[in-house]
C-alpha cells in the first residue's frame, strides 16, 4: 500500500491517523529497507517524533489552518540545510557539519506541517548523475539494487520509490531531480529558476540550481511546490511572481477553452530526425515510451508539433562550462578555516597548504574534477574561448525554447535520459560518458525553465523491470499549466500500484 502526502494530511486532519504513527511508519520503513539501498544518510527519529507530537497537539485542538502537509514525513537531500542533524553534501569536507539554520524551502515545508525524518544521499555537492560519488557509498535503485538510482538527488528519489516517505526535496542543476525521478519511477519537478528560494541550499552552480519536490504523484508535487514557492528576502534571485494555487486546478485538462493543447516534441529526440550525437544514444525502450506518451496526448486531443532544439548536443558543452565555472567559484569557500574539514599541517606549512590539503582531503574525485574544469575555463587565455562562448550558447538555447513556446506550445515533451538506470560502476571510469547522459535535461536549466518527470513505462533489463519517465518542459513561471499537462498523462496512464518497485 502506498499513501500519498495529500492522503496522509487529510487522514491527520480528520484524526484518523496521528502524526506520531505516520512518522513511526516512515522510520520503520527506513529502518527495514535502507540497508539495501542506502538512500537515507541520517535518520532524524527523535526530533521527528517530537515534532509529530506538536502536530498532533495542534490537530487535537482543531488548529489545522495552514497545515496542508500535516504530519507528512519527508526527507531532504543532504545539501539542503536543516538546523538539526548534519548537512553533509555527502562530502568528507562537511561530514561533521551542523547547519545553524534551515533552508527556506525546508522551513516552509515544516511550517506547512511536514516532518523531516531524514537526510537523503546524493552525489557529493550535487555533482553527478548516479549517486555513486558519495562519501557514504552509492545509493542503489529500489527496482534493481545492482543499478544506480540516477542522481544527483538519487537518495531523495529512491526514498520515495521505496516507500520510506511519500515526499522529498531534491535539487536540480542540470537534471538532478528529473533524471533520478525517471530512473526510480517517481514524479520529480524542477521549478522555474527563481520560483523557489535557494537560501540554505549549498551552492553548486548558482545561476542553475533550483530546489524541487519528488513525490509519488503529480498532485503531491503540485502541493509541495505551492508550499515551498515564493519570494524570500534571503534569496535575492527568488521571484516575486505570484504563486498560483497549483492543486486546485490540477484536474482540469489543458485544451478546449484554453485554446487547444499544443505539445512540442524536439526532432532531436525522435526517430530519424534525431541529430547524430543524440540518436545513437537513445535506448529503444525510451524511444517507445516517448511514442507512447505522444499517442496518449493525441488521444486526449492534443496537437503534436515538431520543434527544433538544434543546441541539444552543444548544450552539454555549454552546461559543463558554466556549471563548473560557477562551482569552482562557489566551492572556494571551503578553505579549512571557517567550517568544514581542516587538514593537519606539518611544521613550516602555511596558509596555502592549509587550503590545498584541506580541499585535497575533503573533496572527492568528481568534485575535484569539476573544480579544475571550472578553474581551467575561467583561467587567463581561455575565458573567451570557453566561458564567454558558453554564455552566448546559453542565450541561443533560451531563444530556441522561446521559439517553441512562441509557436503556441504549452509544453515540450522529451525523454529525461537516453536510457533507463545503468549498472553501478558502469560509467565511473568515463566521466564524459556520464555527462552525455544529461543531454535532454541541461538545456532546461540553462534556459531557466520549469520541467517535470512523469513515470510513463517500463523497460526490462536482465530480467528486472525498470521504470522510465518522460520529461515535460513548461514556459517560465507556467508551472500551473505544466502540472495540468503532466496530470493528464498520469491520469490516462494510470500506472498506480505498478510503480511500487518489485525488488528481487
Amino acid at each position, binding site marked *: 500500500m502506498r499513501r500519498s502526502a495529500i492522503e496522509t494530511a487529510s487522514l491527520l486532519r480528520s484524526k484518523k491517523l496521528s502524526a506520531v504513527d505516520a512518522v513511526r511508519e516512515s522510520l520503520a520503513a527506513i529502518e527495514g529497507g535502507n540497508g539495501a539501498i542506502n538512500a537515507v544518510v541520517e535518520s532524524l527519529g527523535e526530533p521527528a517524533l517530537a515534532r509529530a507530537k506538536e502536530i498532533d497537539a495542534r490537530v487535537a485542538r482543531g488548529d489545522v489552518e495552514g497545515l496542508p502537509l500535516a504530519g507528512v514525513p519527508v526527507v531532504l537531500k543532504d545539501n539542503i540545510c536543516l538546523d538539526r542533524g548534519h548537512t553533509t553534501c555527502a562530502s568528507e569536507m562537511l561530514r561533521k557539519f551542523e547547519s545553524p539554520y534551515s533552508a527556506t524551502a525546508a522551513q516552509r515545508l515544516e511550517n506547512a506541517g511536514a516532518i523531516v525524518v531524514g537526510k537523503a544521499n546524493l552525489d557529493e555537492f550535487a555533482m553527478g548523475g548516479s549517486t555513486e560519488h558519495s562519501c557514504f557509498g552509492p545509493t542503489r535503485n529500489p527496482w534493481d539494487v545492482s543499478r544506480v538510482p540516477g542522481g544527483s538527488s538519487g537518495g531523495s528519489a529512491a526514498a520515495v520509490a521505496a516507500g520510506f516517505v511519500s515526499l522529498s526535496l531534491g535539487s536540480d542543476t542540470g537534471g538532478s531531480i528529473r533524471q533520478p525521478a525517471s530512473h526510480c519511477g517517481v514524479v520529480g519537478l524542477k521549478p522555474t529558476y*527563481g520560483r523557489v528560494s535557494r537560501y540554505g541550499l549549498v551552492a553548486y552552480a548558482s545561476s542553475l540550481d533550483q530546489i524541487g519536490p519528488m513525490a509519488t504523484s503529480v498532485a503531491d508535487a503540485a502541493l509541495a511546490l505551492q508550499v515551498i514557492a515564493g519570494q524570500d528576502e534571503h534569496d535575492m534571485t527568488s521571484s516575486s511572481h505570484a504563486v498560483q494555487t497549483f492543486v486546485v486546478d490540477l484536474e482540469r485538462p489543458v485544451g478546449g477553452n484554453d485554446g487547444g493543447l499544443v505539445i512540442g516534441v524536439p526532432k532531436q529526440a525522435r526517430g530519424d530526425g534525431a541529430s547524430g550525437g543524440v540518436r545513437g544514444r537513445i535506448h529503444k525502450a525510451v524511444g517507445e515510451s516517448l511514442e507512447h506518451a505522444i499517442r496518449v496526448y493525441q488521444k486526449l486531443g492534443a496537437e503534436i508539433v515538431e520543434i527544433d532544439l538544434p543546441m541539444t548536443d552543444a548544450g552539454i558543452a555549454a552546461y559543463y562550462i558554466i556549471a563548473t565555472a560557477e562551482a569552482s567559484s562557489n566551492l572556494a569557500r571551503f578553505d579549512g578555516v571557517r567550517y568544514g574539514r581542516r587538514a593537519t599541517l606539518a611544521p613550516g606549512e602555511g596558509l596555502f597548504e592549509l587550503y590545498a590539503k584541506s580541499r*585535497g582531503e575533503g573533496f572527492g574525485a568528481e568534485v575535484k574534477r569539476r573544480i579544475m574544469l571550472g578553474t581551467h575555463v575561467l583561467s587567463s587565455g581561455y575565458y573567451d574561448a570557453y566561458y564567454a*562562448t558558453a554564455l552566448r550558447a546559453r542565450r541561443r538555447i533560451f531563444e530556441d525554447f522561446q521559439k517553441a513556446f512562441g509557436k503556441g506550445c504549452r509544453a515540450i515533451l522529451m525523454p529525461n535520459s537516453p536510457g533507463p538506470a545503468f549498472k553501478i560502476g558502469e560509467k565511473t571510469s568515463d566521466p564524459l560518458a556520464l555527462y552525455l547522459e544529461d543531454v535532454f535535461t541541461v538545456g532546461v536549466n540553462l534556459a531557466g525553465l520549469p520541467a517535470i518527470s512523469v513515470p510513463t513505462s517500463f523497460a526490462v533489463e536482465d530480467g528486472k523491470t525498470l521504470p522510465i519517465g518522460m520529461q515535460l518542459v513548461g514556459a517560465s513561471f507556467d508551472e500551473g499549466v505544466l502540472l495540468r499537462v503532466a496530470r493528464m498523462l498520469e491520469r490516462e496512464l494510470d500506472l498506480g500500484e505498478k510503480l511500487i518497485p518489485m525488488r528481487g
Partner: protein
Amino acid sequence: MPNPSSISQADVRKVAKLARLYISDAEVSQHQQALAAVIGYMDTLKSLDLSAEAAAGTVHAGAGGDGFGSHLAEDEVGPTLSNDALMKMAPLSMPPFVMVPKVLDDGGGA
C-alpha cells in the same frame, strides 16, 4: 592559444594549484585523461557561430526586465549568526577568533 584538448600533466598541476587543490601524482594522471576528454567535448562549441548572441549570465525570468528578476537588498545591517554559532562551526578556534597559520614572514603564500 595552445590546443586545449591536449592537456598535459603540467597543465593539470597548474590548474590544481590555481584551485588551491592538493592532488597526488596518481590523481594527476587520472584527471589528465578525463579533463582532456571533457575539454575536447567543450571545444565543439567553437564550431558554432554564436557571434550574434549576447552573453547570458542568467536567463532568469526571461532575462530580466519583466519585473520578476533579481532585486537588491536594502543596504542595512540585518540579523547575522552569533559569534558562538560561528565559533562552533570553525574546525580550530580560540574564541572569539578562528585560527589560521601564520601568514607573515615565512608563514605561507603560494
